[in-house]
């Protein structure tokens, strides 16, 4: 039957393509099943945006000034290590006013210090000053190093947060750098407030681990000392984890920090069977730790996490092998979290929230329901209207509309695009606007029929006349949606995507597809039944 032609064949395949590739999304995504596993290989699916499936969206930034401070601290640690390694006599090593200062007591050692400063401390600005005995050194961060440190802080925060969230087995968290100084964190499928709090805790904990030595010379004055005073001695005062009243006076330059840690896991104390955290240091860390414990037997060493002292035992003997335990009054779960956090690395600087959107699963389900109803009702109204107004021509246009919907879903599934609530609105809007092409075409055909053209001529001429208008109109809408895509964020991008795909698909279905169908069924169209076919009454004027 009929004239098979390339147009109708292309349309047919597009239709099949649309149905086949949208089936996985239709059968699965809309069930609001938040435990989607990626191993489910039944086909590529549309990802539901956080506003539809529920979840946590956060835009974070890094406290840069703290990143710089901690960089300075690690320079202090390295300088201390180098000075001790070279067996040089120094005094008053401290960190103050964004610089590391120390005094070298023997000027004969100057070349040695200058050598390792040049070799190992690139981009550090060094100023020297004469003092009564020896030379005063002041090290500060150069502009280049500051910039580098800030960048590292961001990148490291992205990696660290990603590791931490991946380690908890949550469903597909996204952690990515956004722009130059922001971090985007998206965790779908967060169900309860407790879950969300847990995630926020994992993200926010800086997990800055430091081994620090207790300033035994002044330790007994710790309760009468102000922080300011402590700083003058190059010390800091940190509280105990269990008893906030208990204070420790520690040298501000740590022995080593968490960057030298290779592994952390939960263990149990052999005597008390309480949970503890066992961690392993890398080679350099083990060496520093071994040397330090060897030279400081009888003194106390504090294990400090995020400026709180967890334990401060007296060193009994040299500890080699780089294995250290943190004991404290841990609950099992807490110990597990700290181990995860230590393992995934510390944050050079703490992060802070710039934007947060959290959508509960029930709200997401409501959003899906509301927008689906709107889509169904809108779709039904348009379909009904087209048939009532245009007869068979309307039916043909409706085929194109249905194909268009499937194509949007199929393309989004294949591209792995995200469907958001505004995206759903975009699909609803597409339904209204996609029939526009067919309205234009049908009006042109009617016009030509009224002027007395034959059906064949009316169809061909109608499509010809309508084409430029449809084309120009679609391109302008496309311009607006492409701009929206580039300047929009999150859910709004979803809107731009569905609208754009809808417009492009409508070119295929509403113009090419319906044209093909007309050509295909042309012999069937009865010129005496124009009311049935095109919804018009035959007039006196028509021949």
């Amino acid at each position, binding site marked *: 039957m009929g004239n098979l032609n390339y147009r109708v064949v292309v349309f047919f395949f597009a239709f099949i393509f649309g149905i086949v590739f949208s089936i996985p999304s239709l059968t699965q995504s809309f069930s609001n099943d938040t435990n989607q596993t990626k191993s489910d290989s039944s086909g590529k699916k549309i990802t539901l945006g956080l506003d539809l499936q529920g979840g946590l969206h956060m835009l974070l930034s890094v406290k840069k000034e703290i990143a710089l401070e901690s960089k300075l601290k690690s320079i202090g640690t390295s300088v201390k290590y180098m000075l001790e390694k070279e067996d040089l006599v120094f005094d008053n090593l401290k960190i103050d006013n964004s610089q590391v200062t120390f005094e070298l007591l023997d000027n004969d050692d100057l070349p040695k210090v200058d050598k390792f400063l040049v070799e190992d401390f690139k981009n550090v600005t060094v100023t020297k000053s004469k003092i009564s005995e020896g030379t005063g050194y002041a090290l500060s961060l150069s502009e280049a190093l500051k910039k580098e440190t800030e960048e590292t802080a961001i990148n490291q925060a992205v990696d660290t947060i990603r590791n931490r969230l991946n380690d908890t087995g949550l469903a597909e968290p996204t952690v990515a750098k956004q722009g130059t100084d922001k971090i985007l964190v998206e965790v779908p499928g967060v169900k309860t407030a407790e879950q969300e709090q847990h995630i926020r805790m994992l993200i*926010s904990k800086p997990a800055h681990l430091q081994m620090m030595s207790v300033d035994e010379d002044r330790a007994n004055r710790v309760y009468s000392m102000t922080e300011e005073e402590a700083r003058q001695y190059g010390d800091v005062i940190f509280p105990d984890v269990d008893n906030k009243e208990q204070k420790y006076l520690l040298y501000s330059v740590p022995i080593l920090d968490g960057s030298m840690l290779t592994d952390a896991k939960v263990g149990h104390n052999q005597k008390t069977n309480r949970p503890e955290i066992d961690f392993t240091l890398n080679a350099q860390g083990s060496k520093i730790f071994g040397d330090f414990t060897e030279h400081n037997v009888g003194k106390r060493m504090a294990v400090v996490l995020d400026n709180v002292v967890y334990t401060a035992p007296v060193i009994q003997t040299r500890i080699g092998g780089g294995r250290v335990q943190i004991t404290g009054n841990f609950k099992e779960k807490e110990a597990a979290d700290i181990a995860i956090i230590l393992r995934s690395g510390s944050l050079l600087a703490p992060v802070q929230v710039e934007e947060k959107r959290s959508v509960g699963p029930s709200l997401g389900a409501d959003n899906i329901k*509301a927008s689906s109803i709107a889509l169904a009702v809108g779709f039904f109204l348009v379909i009904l209207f087209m048939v009532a107004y245009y007869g068979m021509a309307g039916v043909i246009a409706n085929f194109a509309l249905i194909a268009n919907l499937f194509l949007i879903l199929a393309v989004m599934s294949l591209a792995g695009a995200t469907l958001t609530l505004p995206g759903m*609105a975009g699909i609803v809007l597409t339904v209204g606007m996609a029939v526009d092409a067919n309205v234009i075409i049908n009006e042109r055909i009617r016009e030509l029929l009224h002027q007395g053209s034959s059906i064949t001529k009316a169809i061909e001429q109608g499509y010809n006349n309508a084409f430029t208008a449809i084309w120009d109109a679609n391109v302008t809408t496309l311009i607006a949606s492409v701009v929206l895509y580039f*300047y929009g964020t999150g859910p709004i991008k979803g809107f731009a995507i569905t609208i754009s795909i809808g417009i492009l698909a409508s070119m295929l279905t509403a113009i090419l597809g319906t044209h093909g169908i007309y050509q295909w069924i042309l012999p069937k169209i009865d010129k005496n039944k124009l009311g049935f076919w095109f919804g018009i009454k035959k007039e006196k004027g028509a021949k």
Partner: protein
Amino acid sequence: MEVFKHDKAIVGFMKNAKKVGMFSAFMIIASLLLLMTKGLNYGIDFAGGTIVQVQYEGKAPIEKVRDTLAQNRAYNGATVTFFGSESEIAIRTKSTSKAVDVDVSDDMREILAPTGSFKIRGVDMVGPSVGEELRTKGLLAMVFSILGILVYISFRFEWRFAVASVMALMHDVTIALGALALFQIDVNLPILAAILTILGYSLNDTVIVFDRIREGIRTIKSTHLDAIIDESVTRTLSRTTLTSLTTFFVVLTLYLFGGEVLRGFSFTLLVGVVVGTYSSIFVASPILMWLNFSVAGFRENEAAKSKREKEREKQRAMYEQGTM
């Protein structure tokens, strides 16, 4: 079914252009006044702030919530409104918190505990710096859309068409913004998307009318632009109305059924569809006339263009035949 009869007489749109123009001018001035006096009610996306969405079991005790919050130092500036239904409320504050580990929802859970049994369904917080960034981006998006459209229309039609369509766009956007100010609707990101959609949609309408006018200039014998416009607009009247109707239907269903989140978005679109349809007929076309568009000039240009094309084709044909 046919509502718009083919043999319907040509409507004298341009005759009344001045009167309609006055009406448009009035609407624009009213919108601008509204924008200046009442102003846009920026939502948290652009102004920064926090919204907590709370759902109670049964009717939400909104007065109790207000009283409870009023006594709290951190949240006494909060506004509390029903959100979509009787059982749901939205708490809005201007304040934001940068802390990751403690959160407004934790606070609310504690503060509101005496008011009844509820759950927190969602929290939106936008810090001031992000709000500012979103504002800039939104503005840029509008500017670039309009520029892109201007360039495209100039390229496809003529500069006067481009100017007329962009002026119609401005008209639509101004009135839509005026409606937002009048009803004090929260202007958030989805509203921006709606405004940009209006840009695309209204232009879509205008382009289709202009396409007919362009065609009319070629086929209609009269050299009077107003006559050509009248005939062309009459011809597209059915299409313009029908498409606007289908779009209006779906946007209306979105407004009625799409849920609270999309309400502002669909409201803006509803206004936009109506105004956009009106402007493509009554604003864009008269402007074209007032810009001294010359029918004869356009025809000369077109003729020259087609002559050039014919010339080129002839040369190509000769080249292919090897006679050159």
